[in-house]
Structures are given as C-alpha cells and as structure tokens.
C-alpha cells in the first residue's frame, strides 16, 4: 500500500501549506492536527464521510474561518482572510438571487478588475457564460435556472474572478448523475485550458468523483477530522470516463479507498469501546 504513504513534496513553495491545524466548534474537535502540502496547479480532492471536517478545511483555506491552532499558507503567505486570489464555489448555489447571471458575474469582475470599463465587463461576462454553456441565459435570474445551470453560473463567476486557486465545496452534490458528470467534465476542461493551471481543492464524499477528477486524493476520517491517507491518482489526462471507470486500475483504487475508510471506522469503534470498557470499570 505504498500509494498511501504521505509524501513530503519539496517543490511546493507556491501552493498550499497546512501546518498542524486544529479547529473546534462549540468545544467539539472538528479537525485535528492537519498537515498537508499541495503543489500549485494541482487538482486535489478532499474525500471523506460527513463529519470529517472537509468543508471546515475548505473554509479555512478560503480564509472564511480561522484555526484554533496551526497555520495555513497559500503561495508562501499566511491565509488571513478571504481573498480574490481564491475563488470559492459552494454546494448550495451561491449566486445572488436578486441579480441576473450577467449581473452576478459583472459584480465579481468589478471587484477583480476594478479598472475595467463597464461595457468590457459585460462582454467578458458573456464570454465566461458562453464557456460554461450559458450564453443564452445571461439575462436570466437564478430562480429561472435549474440547479445544474446555477452551478455552471457559479463556476463561471469563480473563473471570472481570475483567481489562481479554486476552492469547491461539493459543488455538484445536489445534481442528478448526468448533470453531475457533465459539470465534472466542464470543470476539468476549464482547469486544463487555463495556463498556468489553477490550484483546485475540491471537497466531495463521492469516491468515483474524487478519483475521476483528482491528481491527488486526501482521505479524511471522521470525528475528529484527520488525514487518514493521501494518494496520487496516476491516470493520464485527458481521462476518458467510460474507459477509466471500467478499467481494473480504477476499480482497484476505488476498492482500496473504500477498504481504508471501512478500516478507519472499525478502528474508531474499537478505540471507543476500549474507552467505554475502561469507563465501566470506574
């Protein structure tokens, strides 16, 4: 199981560095001693069950929350608040519902490129919408769009900010399988076409999604959230969905991941029963 060995990377200076991070909420440990390093331009999936603190870790990376202990750094600078450097796409469609798609994107552009003239902003917004297949929906409001279309819009907005990092919190979690697959492919094509490549941290609980998308998968265990394994995904890009998912390597990787999660659950239960049986003696 050498793939699970956590490697220390030397050429990571311009990516993410998470160092001894602890986070608790109402006295309950959510994240415990997280140490991770991701290269710039890497597509990382944080994979784990509910309660593993993956969303919290993403919020910490975004600068929307502050750790109790430890440090987080992006491009060698400590993360001390949200920034246009790091675009975020949330699961619940996060477009502002009182604005049209175009207005949502031009608002983002007005913050990311304040010197840009209004008409150029609009033209850029149209280009980004076209990129995600929403060219005809520019004047539509979010309530007029399906979940998948809203999430395309949210991706367009995150891309429009032009941030070198993209943080995504189960962005396709609420979509049906077909839209989900379409948006995964859209995301990968957007990610590959950008130069230099964006550093993506993508939170999911779907093993297939993680393997299909990621260069590297970080497995998080629950209560408290902690890294239980890290693995490189060796598949070459561009990846062909059908061929990949049917391949023996893919199936084996997925089995390994599922077994590792199961083992973690069993370990945790045994630890707990050990504590419980000790307590019974008191």
């Amino acid at each position, binding site marked *: 199981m050498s793939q699970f060995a956590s490697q220390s990377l030397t050429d990571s200076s311009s990516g993410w560095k998470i160092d001894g991070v602890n986070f608790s909420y109402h006295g309950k440990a959510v994240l415990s001693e997280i140490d991770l390093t991701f290269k710039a331009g890497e597509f990382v999936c944080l994979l784990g069950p509910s309660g593993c603190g993956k969303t919290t870790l993403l919020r910490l990376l975004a600068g*929307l929350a502050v750790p109790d202990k430890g440090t987080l750094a992006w491009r060698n600078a400590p993360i001390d608040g949200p920034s246009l450097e790091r675009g975020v796409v949330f699961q619940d469609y996060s477009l502002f519902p009182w604005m049209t798609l175009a207005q949502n994107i031009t608002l983002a552009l007005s*913050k990311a490129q304040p010197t840009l003239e209004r008409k150029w902003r609009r033209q850029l917004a149209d280009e980004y919408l076209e990129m995600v297949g929403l060219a005809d929906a520019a004047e539509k409001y979010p309530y007029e769009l399906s979940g998948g279309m809203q999430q395309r819009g949210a991706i367009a907005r995150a891309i429009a900010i032009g941030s070198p990092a993209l943080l995504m919190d189960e962005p396709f979690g609420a979509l049906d399988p077909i839209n989900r697959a379409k948006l995964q492919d859209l995301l990968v094509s957007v990610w590959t076409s950008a130069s230099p490549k964006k550093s993506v941290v993508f939170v999911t609980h779907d093993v297939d999604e993680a393997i299909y998308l990621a260069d590297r998968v970080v497995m998080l265990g629950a209560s408290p959230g902690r890294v239980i394994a890290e693995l490189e995904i060796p598949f070459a890009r561009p990846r062909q969905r059908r061929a990949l998912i049917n391949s023996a390597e893919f199936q084996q990787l997925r089995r390994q991941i599922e077994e590792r999660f199961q083992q973690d659950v069993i370990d945790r239960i045994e630890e707990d029963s050990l504590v419980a049986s000790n307590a019974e003696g008191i």
Partner: protein
Amino acid sequence: MSTLSQTTTRPVVPQSRTKPNHVAPTTNRRSWIKGQEGLVFLLVLVLIWQLVSSASFSGSYLFPSPLVSLKALWVSLPELLRGTGASFLILIPGYLLAVVTGIGWGLLAGTQPVLHRLFLPFSRLASPIPPTIYIPYAIALLPSFRTAAGFVVFIGAFWPIFLNSAAGAAALPQRYRDNARILGLRGIEYLRVIVFPAALPHIFSGLSVGLVFSFIMLTVAELFGANAGLGRFIQLYADYADYPRMVAGILYTGIVVLFTTELLERIKKRALFWVR
C-alpha cells in the same frame, strides 16, 4: 368492509354509483361561493347595517343607512379630497423619513455587532411605547401642527421599519455573507448590493406595518389639532353630530388606506420577484 376478502368478493360498483348522486348537489352549492366568501361576508355586513339603521330605537340616528352614508360621501367628496391632500402632506414626509432612517439604521445595526449592542437597550425601551402618547408633547414641543404630526407619523413608522430591517440584515444567510467576503465587498457597497436586497422581504413587512401605523398616528394626531385632513373631517362632523358625513369619512379613510397599502403591495411584488 373490514377485511380485504370482503371488499374483493362483494361488488362495490353499485355503491360507488349511488354516492355521486348524493354528493353532487352539495359540491355545486359550494362552488359558486368559492373564492367569493369575502364578498358575501361584506354583503351580509351591509345587510345588517341596513337592518340596524332602519330599526327605530333611541340612538338610531347614530346609524345612518348605507344609502344615506353613500350620499354623504358623494356630497363631501371635494372636501374629503382636499383633506386627503392635507393628510398626505403630513404622512408622506414623516413616512419617508422613517423609511430612509429605519432601513439605513436598521441595516447598520443588523450587520455591525457594536452598533447592535449600542442601540439594543434603547430600542428595547423605546420601541414598545405606544407612539400615540407622544402626540400632546410633540404638539407642545414643535413649532407647528404639521411638524408635530409629521414627527409622530415618523415615530409610528420608524420602529417597525427599523426592527424588521435590522432583523433582515442579521438573518443574512451565511452563503451570501461568505460570497460577499470572497468578492471583497465591504462597507456601503456591501450594504447596498448584498445586505439590502437580501433583507428586502423583512424590510417590506416592516414597511407594511409601518404604513398602517403612520395612518393611525396621522388620524389620531389630526383629531387633536388639525385644521384640515381626514381625521379632522371625522372629528368635525362628529362634533356637529352629522353622523352620515362622519360615517362617510370613516369609509373614505378605509378606502384611502386600502389603496395605499395595495400600492405598497404592488411595489413589494415587483421588488421581490426573485423570492420563490
């Protein structure tokens, strides 16, 4: 038909054929009223009004019949329209001032914890005071009746608008706040582009309650010392014991309030089109 076997063996068809014949007339009887219940209720009220006014008892002069009241309304329409003008000259500035200050200060207090803590004890103390009790003091304190009445209209509308705006701003969903922070929206821009629209559903409930309060404050203030206006009209004809005109004034005021709140409702529907 307690068990499954009974239902399957016994033919149920004849029963179901006879049933609709019994049910049909009642459903028909219900259907013409359906959706018109409110109108029917109003007609019944007018009928009762007519009956009471046509009965002879001591004090029945206090109940002019619907027709007499309508005639009085027709005759006093020019005077009532002038009164409406005078009333709105007080209502509009007072209400608009409450709208601007209530929303502005409410959004600030709802987003800035410091301002919230600063203002909370005072608003707890001051907001439950029935604003009508300020009227005598306002009349004594302020240079003219118009400013005094405008002031109490402002007080009456301010609290519901302020409290609802603050609640709406404080209830801003986390995801909008996060997105705004990531986009770097701050200060006035954050309030204008994010907090204000997001709080609009709350703000509009404040505006509706505030509008009704303004009308109450206005008409009560006019009973005190106005020389024109809707409340003044009613007070005047009550003093003259001209009850048809007084009743006409009450009806007319109701219609004016109805139209004004309906106007606000229209604005609300347009502004909140994005709320599903």
